[in-house]
């Protein structure tokens, strides 16, 4: 997911930095070839970006550095998908959504859940210009209005309509195995699905 998103963001005109658990030097060749135009950096530098996307296997979320991400706008694109990734107690024993668990682990990060419900190859194939009636929409959920506005702009520039599903807890409506997660929807359809999942949510 990370490399596909990086390419799509580069296409949209963003400056992109990529970090993994490995030192930047080890990723340099990979980044040059697979995401030309992006820069391999250390995770502390990636965390200092205007917008940070977390696209690591969710069960590794504790390897993130909460201090580096403090106060940052963070998109949680990760999923808990036990049939695929196995069962992990952190998510089984916690009634909160996985994004809330991640937000709880981070320190004051402004977490927005999104980009978890589009396949990595779809991300580069399904994009359309704004205004196209068939344009695919992606949901976002978060508790920080300013962070959500930035993420909505990001999603739009990637080639998708952004639909606000409400607070971070409302991200449950597009977790794995939901209709939103498994399908592809226009903004109109997505709003209806979000309202169906959570009738009180302010989906607009």
């Amino acid at each position, binding site marked *: 997911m990370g490399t596909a998103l990086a390419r799509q963001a580069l296409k949209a005109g963003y400056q992109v930095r990529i970090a993994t658990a490995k030192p930047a030097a080890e990723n340099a060749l990979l980044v040059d070839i697979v995401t030309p135009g992006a820069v391999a950096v250390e995770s502390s530098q990636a965390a200092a970006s205007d917008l940070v996307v977390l696209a690591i296997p969710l*069960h590794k979320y504790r390897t993130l550095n909460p201090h580096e991400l403090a106060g940052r706008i963070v998109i949680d694109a990760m999923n808990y998908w036990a049939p695929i990734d*196995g069962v992990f107690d952190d998510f089984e024993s916690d009634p909160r959504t996985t994004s809330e668990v991640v937000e709880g682990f981070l320190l004051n990060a402004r977490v927005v859940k999104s980009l978890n419900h589009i396949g990595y*190859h779809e991300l580069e194939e399904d994009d359309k210009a704004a205004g196209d009636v068939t344009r695919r929409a992606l949901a976002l959920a978060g508790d920080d209005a300013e962070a959500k506005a930035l993420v909505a702009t990001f999603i739009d520039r990637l080639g998708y309509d952004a639909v606000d599903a409400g607070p971070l807890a409302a991200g449950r409506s597009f977790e794995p195995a939901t209709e939103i997660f498994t399908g592809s929807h226009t903004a109109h359809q997505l709003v209806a699905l979000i309202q169906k999942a959570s009738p009180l949510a302010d989906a607009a």
Partner: protein
Amino acid sequence: MQIGAYSFGDTQLNPDGSSRSTAEAIKNLFDAIVHADTVGLDYFGIGEHHTVSMPASSPSALIAAAAAATTQITLGSAASIISTDDPVRVFQQLATADAISGGGRIEITAGRGSSVETFPLFGFDLNDYDELYAQKLDLLLTLNNSQAEHVTWTGRTRPSISDLAVVPRPVNGSLPIWIATGGSAPSSARAGRLGLPISYGIIGGQPHRFAPLANLYRQSAAQAGHSGDNIKVSVATFGLVAPTKQEAIDRLYPGWVNLNLEMGKLRGWPAPQRRDFLAQVNAPNAYFVGDPDDIATRIVELHRHLGHMRHFFQGDHGGLPQEYLLESLTLLATEVKPRVQRLLAAK
């Protein structure tokens, strides 16, 4: 260009939808491999899989049997899930098959597995997913690269081996070991750094989008000082060949529905739609379902992007009737392959 097939085993279904025996699926797979050898296919891979619908749990045993019953085809695991197996046993079993084959026809493809059934089955912890794979691959390579019968290895995920015999040795000294990946960039870089051939399993999307990964693989190999015959790419995709494209589509579709219904139950997918299937069956998409001309053209087109030296196909899933699999194998060997060779030579 080598043309081949792979399978995880395909348990047949009764008319009421219930499963027939998994033993029958293994026998069918064995028969298919022998048939593939007879018609002249280059490669058959057996993928370790642990479900009722796809029961080829023991590639090494099947490969050993097939080694005795075939004469020319290259046989390999595709892949062996080494993270949750003992690399010593994987190596010994396939070196044994190599001896039976006469030597030079047996390969190992090392993978992590796309699902996680083997972790609870064999008593491993998913939290060790990455370390298990790295360590066991290291042991497998140590065994394979050893010049002598006696091997020494130290690691963290299994007891060390101190100057113990690991036999038999392969006929030609070592077995080809491939790295299998579903398309992760770090795996491509790792295979290149190790100087090992790489096998891409491409089950969705547009296969030509793997071009940057193949490029990363080759440049990583070059940077690490690896060159020569071992730096090569193979590609595994869904595929079924029939006399006409419409027949190929109609033959593969019911099994595709069954597979997606089963996976959908597990993963919460909606009911599979025919339009989703049809969206994948033409270039440049993922399913190589067609007549020989169509499939040959698409292999050659993908070759322009990936430069692969082997393309192998899985068509038997969800209860594909055995005769359709056998006809597809025949067509791949006798109709698709000559077309591919002609098209590549004409370029």
